[in-house]
C-alpha cells in the first residue's frame, strides 16, 4: 500500500509545471498598450495578478515580502516610445530564491511579452540582453504531446520506488539476522553460501516484481498512462535490475554490523543514485563528473529504460546498451557480495 501512496503523492508533488506564479505589475504608462500587456499575462494560466501599482518601490517591497514572485515594470511613455520607434524598454524582476520558479517565470513572461511585441513589430528588451526575434520558432513535444509533467515523472518515480524498496529490504535483512543472532544459527548449518544467498534474493525479487505490477496498475488506471512498449520487456529488465540492486543491498549488509549503520550506508547510495538518476533534472545537463558517476549508477539506466519503454515504446534493441550496463553492474556487485559474504568470521 505504501508504495502506491508514494507514487500518488510524489508524482503530484514533484511536478515541475509552474502555475499560479504571483505577478506584480508596475504600470506607470497607463495606456491601452500597457493594459493589453497586463491582459496577455493574466490571460495565461501561469500568472495571477496579485499586485498592481504605480510605485516601483512598493512593488519591490511586495517582492521582498514574498507576496509576488515576479514584477513587470512598464515605464512612463512606453506606448509613445513604441510608436515613435524609440526603443521601448520594460523590466522583469524575478525573485530568484527558488531558481526553478525564477527561470520558468521569467521565460514564461518573456515568451508572452515577445509574442505580443512581435505582433506590434517591436523588439523587446529582457534584462540586459536584447533578443532579435527574426526567426519564429515553434516546438512540438513528441512522446509526451501535452508536455504533461506527470507522464514524465510517473515512470521515473516508479523506478526510484522499486530501487529504494529493494535496497532497503535486502540491506536491512541480513543485518537484522546479525543483530538477532539467527545468522550464527544458520551459519553452523550445512547450507551453502549460494543456497543462502539465493534463498535471500528470490523473495525480494518477487516483492520487487509485485511492486512494479502495483505501480503499473496505478499508472494505467489512476493516471491513464498508456504503456507504449512491451510489458514483458519491462518485467524482464526490472527483474535483472532487481538482482543488481539487491546485490548492492546485500553487499551493504555484509559490511555493516547493525541496522542503523546499514541504513546510513544505504541512504548515502540512495541519495546519490536518485539525484543523479535523471528523474528530477536531465542527466545531459549535469556536469561531466556527474555523468561519469552515472556510468555506475544502475538507477539512471532504469529511469531511462522505463521512460523509453513506457512513453516511447522502445524495443529491446533500443535499450540494449543500458540493459547491458545493468547486467555488467549486476554481475560485478553480486560477485563482490558473494566474495565478501562469509559464513566464518
Amino acid at each position: 500500500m505504501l508504495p502506491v501512496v508514494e507514487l500518488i503523492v510524489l508524482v503530484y508533488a514533484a511536478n515541475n509545471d509552474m502555475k499560479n506564479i504571483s505577478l506584480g505589475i508596475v504600470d506607470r504608462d497607463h495606456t491601452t498598450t500597457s493594459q493589453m500587456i497586463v491582459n496577455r499575462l493574466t490571460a495565461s494560466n501561469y500568472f495571477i495578478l496579485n499586485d498592481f501599482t504605480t510605485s516601483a518601490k512598493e512593488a519591490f517591497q511586495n517582492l521582498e515580502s514574498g507576496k509576488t514572485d515576479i514584477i513587470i515594470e512598464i515605464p512612463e511613455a512606453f506606448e509613445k516610445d513604441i510608436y515613435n520607434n524609440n526603443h521601448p524598454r520594460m523590466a522583469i524582476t524575478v525573485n530568484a530564491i527558488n531558481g526553478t520558479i525564477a527561470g520558468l517565470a521569467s521565460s514564461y513572461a518573456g515568451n508572452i511579452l515577445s509574442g505580443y511585441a512581435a505582433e506590434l513589430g517591436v523588439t523587446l528588451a529582457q534584462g540586459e540582453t536584447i533578443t532579435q526575434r527574426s526567426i519564429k520558432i515553434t516546438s512540438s513535444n513528441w512522446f509526451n504531446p501535452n508536455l504533461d509533467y506527470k507522464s514524465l515523472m510517473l515512470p521515473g518515480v516508479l523506478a526510484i520506488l522499486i530501487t529504494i524498496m529493494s535496497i532497503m529490504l535486502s540491506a536491512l535483512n541480513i543485518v537484522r539476522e546479525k543483530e538477532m543472532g539467527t545468522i550464527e544459527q544458520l551459519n553452523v548449518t550445512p547450507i551453502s553460501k549460494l543456497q543462502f544467498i539465493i534463498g535471500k534474493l528470490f523473495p525480494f525479487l518477487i516483492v520487487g516484481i509485485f511492486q512494479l505490477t502495483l505501480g503499473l496498475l496505478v499508472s494505467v488506471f489512476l493516471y491513464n498512462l498508456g504503456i507504449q512498449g512491451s510489458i514483458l520487456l519491462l518485467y524482464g529488465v526490472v527483474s535483472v535490475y532487481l538482482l543488481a540492486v539487491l546485490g548492492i543491498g546485500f553487499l551493504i549488509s555484509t559490511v555493516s554490523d547493525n541496522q542503523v549503520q546499514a541504513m546510513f550506508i544505504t541512504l548515502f547510495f540512495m541519495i546519490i543514485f536518485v539525484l543523479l538518476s535523471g528523474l528530477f533534472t536531465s542527466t545531459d545537463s549535469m556536469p561531466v563528473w556527474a555523468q561519469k558517476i552515472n556510468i555506475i549508477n544502475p538507477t539512471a539506466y532504469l529511469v531511462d529504460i522505463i521512460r523509453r519503454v513506457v512513453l516511447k515504446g522502445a524495443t529491446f534493441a533500443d535499450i540494449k546498451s543500458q540493459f547491458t550496463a545493468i547486467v555488467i553492474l549486476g554481475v560485478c556487485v553480486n560477485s563482490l557480495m558473494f566474495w565478501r559474504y562469509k559464513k566464518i568470521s
Partner: protein
Amino acid sequence: MNSIEINNISKSFGSKKALQTINLNVEAGEVFGLIGADGAGKSTLFDILVTLSKSDSGTARIEGLDVEKDYKKIRKIVGYMPGRFSLYMDLTVYENLDFFASIFGGTIEDNYELIKDIWVQIEPFKDRPAGKLSGGMKQKLALCCALVHQPRVLFLDEPTTGVDPVSRNEFWNMLKNLKRKGITILVSTPYMDEAILCERIALMQEGKIMAIDTPSNITKAFNKPLFSVKSTHQRKLINTLRRFDQAYSCYFFGQSVHLAAKNESVSAKEISDYLNENGHPEIQVAKISAGIEDCFIELMRKTA
C-alpha cells in the same frame, strides 16, 4: 575416544588475548562444563569449535574432524545453541523447528525420537510465535532446534543464563537424558552451582584454563580449612578478618564472609574469640567444606 580435542588454541582480538593456549579433551558421551565468569573466553572457544570463527593458532578436532579443514562435515554433526536466543521470533514454535529440520535435509518426524521428551513440553504452544515464549520455553525450543538433526556433539553456550531456577533444573535433567542417548555435551555456564551437575569441568579465567577435573576432585584439591563467618556489619567484618594473623584469604560469599585459614589447627572458636575482641556483635562461625566457587576464587588468586 575423545569427542572433542583442543590443542594449543589461541585467539586475540586486537591486543586482547581472548584465548591463551587452550588444551582440552572431552570424552565421547561426556557432559563437560566450561565454568567461568563473563569475558573468560567461553563463547570465543565455542565459536571456534562450531566453525563460526578461526583460531589464530592451534588445532581442534570434533569427532576426529579438523575444525578448519572439515568444517562442512562438522556442521552436519554438531548442534549449537548460542548464548543469546537466536531463533526467528516471528515464526511459530513449530515453524522454527520445521525450518531447522529442513535446513539439515530432514524432517521433524525422522528425528522425533531424540527430541520427543522436550518437544512434548512445548508442543502446547506450537502455534505461538517464538518471540512470545517465556524464557524457559525459549530455551527448550532452542534445544529442540539444536537437536533436530540428531547431532553427535552438542554445544550449549550459557543455556541457563537468564532462566528461572525451576526451568534451569528441568534443563539439566534434559541434558542428563540426552547423555544417555550417547551425545557428547559441552556446556558453558557462569553459575558455579551448575558445575557439580557436569561430569567434568574446566575452570576458565581470562582466556586460560585454570583447572580441569571432576567437580569432586576440584573441591578436594582445596587444602585449607574454610570457615563461613557471619556478623551484623559485613564491611567491618571483612576488614577485621583481613587483619587476622591466621587469615589466608577472605571474601564475601552471599550473606556471609568465607575465610580460608593458613593452618589446619585454626578452630572456629579461635576466630570468634578474635572477632569478640574486636567488638563484633552476633558472631556466627562455622567450618565448611569448599565448593566450586571457593576453588575458583582460590585458583584466581594463584594465577593473578
